[in-house]
């Protein structure tokens, strides 16, 4: 009896699995199960498990008691059965249906196992490859060569200077003050020469007026449309 289970109970997915195992093991016809025989085998298997101190899931106990109940019902004469209960033959039919259905899924699971193994042999790349825009469209050795040799040639040219488009008044005041401190005396046309734009000329003129107001410089014009001379007012000599 202890050799009845050649596979441990926890290798079975459930009571239906164990039942199917017993049916195949004893070469029984799944469509006409000898209930008394199978009930005995099933109960033995469960008891064996208990002896081996393996925790038995409630489903196995339920199935064992159901099988015993069904077995006892089948032994009783038909007439003695209460009317509200199912005919034992019908019960057996339902159990058979369940077993057949379950055994179908058991086989499908086996088929899925094969598919899983087979599919696992087709290796695939996990992630998509994105086309690098640059390497496909633009960058090529010629472009690199072009960039390099053009840079070398550019070396001989005077670097182009970009002036700020917006001229700041305070920047211009600082510039004119510096010019005046440096030269003591200069012409307005000298100031104009330092201007990058017409706009800066206008702002320079306003700056000169402002510096005159602050008594930092004085400006004189000898004749109408003549040169304007700008000169520094000596510190202390102011207001003098």
């Amino acid at each position: 009896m202890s050799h009845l289970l050649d596979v441990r109970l926890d290798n079975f997915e459930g009571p239906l699995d164990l039942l199917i195992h017993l049916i195949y093991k004893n070469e029984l016809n799944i469509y006409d199960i000898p209930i008394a025989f199978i009930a005995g085998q099933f109960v033995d298997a469960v008891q064996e498990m208990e002896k081996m101190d393996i925790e038995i899931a409630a489903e196995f106990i339920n199935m064992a008691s159901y099988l015993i109940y069904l077995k006892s019902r089948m032994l009783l004469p038909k007439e003695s059965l209460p009317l509200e209960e199912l005919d034992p033959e019908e019960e057996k039919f339902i159990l058979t249906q369940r077993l057949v259905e379950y055994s179908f899924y058991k086989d499908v699971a086996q088929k899925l196992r094969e598919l899983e193994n087979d599919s696992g042999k087709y290796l695939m790349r996990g992630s998509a490859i994105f086309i690098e825009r640059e390497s496909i469209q633009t960058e090529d050795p010629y472009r690199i060569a072009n960039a390099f040799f053009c840079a070398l040639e550019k070396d001989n040219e005077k670097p182009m200077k970009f002036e700020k488009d917006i001229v700041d008044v305070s920047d211009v005041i600082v510039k004119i003050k510096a010019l005046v401190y440096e030269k003591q005396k200069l012409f307005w046309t000298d100031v104009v020469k330092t201007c990058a734009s017409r706009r800066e000329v206008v702002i320079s003129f306003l700056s000169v007026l402002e510096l005159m107001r602050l008594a930092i410089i004085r400006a004189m014009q000898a004749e109408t449309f003549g040169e304007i001379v700008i000169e520094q007012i000596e510190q202390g000599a102011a207001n003098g």
Partner: protein
Amino acid sequence: MDREKKIFFSSLFLAGEPLDNKFFRKILDPINLENRLLDYMEQFNGMSLGIKIRQVSGGFQMVTDKELFTELEPFFGEKTETLSRASLETAAIIAYKQPITRLEIDEIRGVNSSGTVRYLLDKNLVKVTGRKDVPGKPLLYSTTKFFLEYMGINDISELPTFREWQELKTK
């Protein structure tokens, strides 16, 4: 058209994952497209390059030939555990009976399946697809597109039917 064929091959090369017909209808002339794609697939596979195009989960995917598995596996194989018997059984039931509730799965298996269903959900092999209109409104489960890809099949209908199985059994 030759250019179309090249786009088909190169898209599959870049994607790695399966690309479905919807994708190709966007990028190629949709009229009678599927037949042409099947033709291209056959041409490609006929060249025996070690790379194959397979039909899977309702689309096409570029994969390596399985006969090269032993050589390529050490370098490119991912170590993934296979599914347990309980998971396979549960997945099988969901595949055939979808959408199905957990209780209905339990009835067929004769055991509680909540653990395995959760595992399959985690693995993206099954998904929740609604609730059944019965008391308690239990969740309904179906298999995913990834399930098909994982099993390497194009459609659930590729699995044997109950009738086919019975005929085999009674022989």
